[in-house]
């Protein structure tokens, strides 16, 4: 017996499911097919901004070189260099307003310094005399974050809280290409889009997660394409074109500030140095690849264009280099001083008030120190 033959079947009419349509049109969310560029396109350049970007790039590269040298002298425990990625670091710092928040990863010391943070405070984590060397609220820079992508939901929560309070504050969160595989990347982007939080995610795709190339990390058309799945726009930018990164970031930050919601930006760049001073990059990549990227160096690109357009001259270039040397000399001097260490700090600020347990342990350490001193 078929359904049609059942008694009463004539009256049965299945209700058709409601017509399906996408909840939002995905087309406007798609990234451009090519990374966005400013340099070499003939686009108009804002000279004061260009000179500022240039000076910060040069200073940033010198900072990276100095910090790496400090690891060799035992003055830093480790340094993950952002050499080659200075355009992203610097543009991130300059695109933010004073009231905005930056959520850096371990590789983004430079972004914090370019934002005005004291270099010694910024390097505290990597020197190893404490974890975070500054008051995050005072500088609106979250602690440099090591567990991959875990800073992203913090940025979303902070941006959400600011919006609930009626403050037009934007959070900018930095993450690497490898970090996009983490669950927290997914959760943060999803929360951000659902809450329409004023947050911008900048992925610095530098080609590697330690030794693992992007091809082993994702099968997505690009990292920027991932935005579409969350319902936010994805933007692709040449991460070595400082004015381009600055422009794309500024647009996304402005959009977030106006209540337009989050944006995911993929900046295509390259890590010129090893993962950290402790890494040996020759085990997983050849020098030809690195040399090819040298041609597309962020400082070289900007300097070339500014020179060609007559926006900077020899004197300007020399002045930037000298300012960078002065910064490096000051940093060397500061970092050559032994940090003040107080072992009793170990028990401070574990809780608001010290528990009896920690008081006992602090007393034990104090006694050990006193015995040592005798």
């Amino acid at each position, binding site marked *: 017996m078929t359904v049609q033959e059942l008694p009463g079947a004539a009256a049965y009419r299945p209700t058709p499911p409601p017509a399906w349509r996408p909840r939002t049109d995905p087309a406007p969310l798609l990234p451009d097919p090519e990374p966005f560029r400013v340099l070499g396109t003939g686009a108009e350049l804002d000279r004061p901004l260009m000179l500022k970007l240039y000076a910060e790039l040069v200073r940033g590269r010198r900072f990276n070189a100095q910090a790496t040298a400090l690891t060799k002298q035992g003055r830093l425990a480790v340094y993950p260099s952002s050499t080659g990625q200075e355009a992203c670091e610097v543009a991130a710092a300059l695109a933010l307003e004073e009231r905005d928040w930056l959520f850096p990863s371990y590789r983004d010391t430079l972004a914090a310094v370019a934002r005005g943070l004291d270099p010694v405070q910024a390097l505290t984590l990597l020197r190893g005399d*404490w*974890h*975070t060397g*500054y*008051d*995050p*609220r*005072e500088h609106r820079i*979250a*602690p440099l974050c090591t*567990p991959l992508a*875990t800073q*992203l*939901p*913090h*940025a*979303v*929560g*902070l*941006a*959400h*809280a*600011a919006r*609930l*309070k009626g403050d037009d504050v934007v*959070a900018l969160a930095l993450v690497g290409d490898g970090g996009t595989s983490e*669950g*927290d990347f*997914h*959760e*943060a982007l*999803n*929360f951000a889009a*659902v809450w329409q939080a004023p947050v911008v995610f900048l992925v610095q795709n530098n080609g590697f997660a330690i030794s693992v190339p992007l091809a082993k990390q994702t099968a997505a058309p690009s990292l920027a394409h991932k935005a579409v799945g969350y319902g936010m726009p994805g933007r692709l930018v040449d991460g070595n074109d400082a004015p381009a990164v600055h422009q794309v970031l500024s647009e996304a930050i402005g959009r977030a500030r106006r209540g337009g919601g989050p944006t995911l930006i993929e900046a295509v760049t390259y890590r010129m140095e090893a993962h950290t001073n402790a890494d040996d990059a020759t085990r997983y990549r050849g020098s030809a690849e690195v040399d090819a990227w040298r041609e597309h160096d962020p400082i070289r690109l900007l300097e070339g264009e500014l020179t060609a357009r007559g926006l900077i001259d020899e004197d300007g270039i020399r002045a930037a280099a000298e300012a960078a040397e002065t910064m490096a000399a000051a940093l060397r001097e500061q970092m050559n001083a032994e940090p003040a260490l107080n072992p009793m*700090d170990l028990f*401070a*600020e*574990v*809780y*608001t008030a010290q*528990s*009896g*347990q920690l008081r006992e342990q602090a007393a034990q350490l104090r006694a050990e120190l006193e015995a040592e001193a005798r």
Partner: protein
Amino acid sequence: MTTATDKKPATMAQALQRAMRDAMAEDPTVHVLGEDVGTLGGVFRVTDGLAKEFGEDRCTDTPLAEAGILGTAVGMAMYGLRPVVEMQFDAFAYPAFEQLISHVAKMRNRTRGAMAMPIVVRVPYGGGIGGVEHHSDSSEAYYMATPGLKVVTPATVEDAYGLLREAIADDDPVVFLEPKRLYWSKSDWSPEDPAPVEPIGRAVVRRPGSSATLLTYGPSLPVCLEAAEAAREEGWDLEVVDLRSLVPFDDETVCASVRRTGRAVVVHESAGFGGPGGEIAARVTERCFHHLEAPVLRVAGFDIPYPPPMLEKHHLPGVDRVLDAVARLQWEAEH
């Protein structure tokens, strides 16, 4: 919600709801977030009515992602809010561990006190409700092993209200473990007239006694009180201490009791090996050795994955198992 005119006994779930409600009314920075906490009022109805009274921005149904919930709560706390996060069940809090351990617990210390994390993570925990797998874990040992977290658990309706108010007001992160099987326990407690409660960090003697001390918390408190009643027939007058706060731990109250009675049994549902009882027994032994008439014993859940509901009664420490332990406290030596 219980009101002044409505004198019927309140349940623990209602007391918890009332604690959040009162905290939200007093302090606009208190926000509740979690899965199904808004329109539904939570799967245990502990957030019932909060979204209606305070709006969805204050009591928010989040996307279904525990790390995301706790991770965004961290960001909210950075901006000055006091988030109260609900984890739907003990075993479903595990995806949030990285945020809890690497950020929530450490933030104050790693920023030298500049950034506190006044977050409460509410976790319904423990078995005895006939839940199928992943709904009955006792996860307290994981939290206790993480410096920077406070870990508390109420065992009475009064304490549910008082301890949760304390937890929300606390500038440190608090993992607030709610004994599921006591959600529907009742008392004449009235929200209009909340009795004063001991602060976080204090244990409370729930039943004074002289022969031995039962050290317990959360879902095992009623078991121990029942065991203490039954023990009278055997001639034992048992003291029952409700620990309330596993971190910080109240050595003072615990040791005062054990020194008085000379014998102690730790009782909890959580697995014994690597469980809270080992730490507690060690602390008591280190501090009260010369007062002890017998080794400190543990009555705990077996060292097995939480059993299926039809077998859980064999796993959960019950009155008989507690009394058996008490019987093994070397009474012969006295006579």
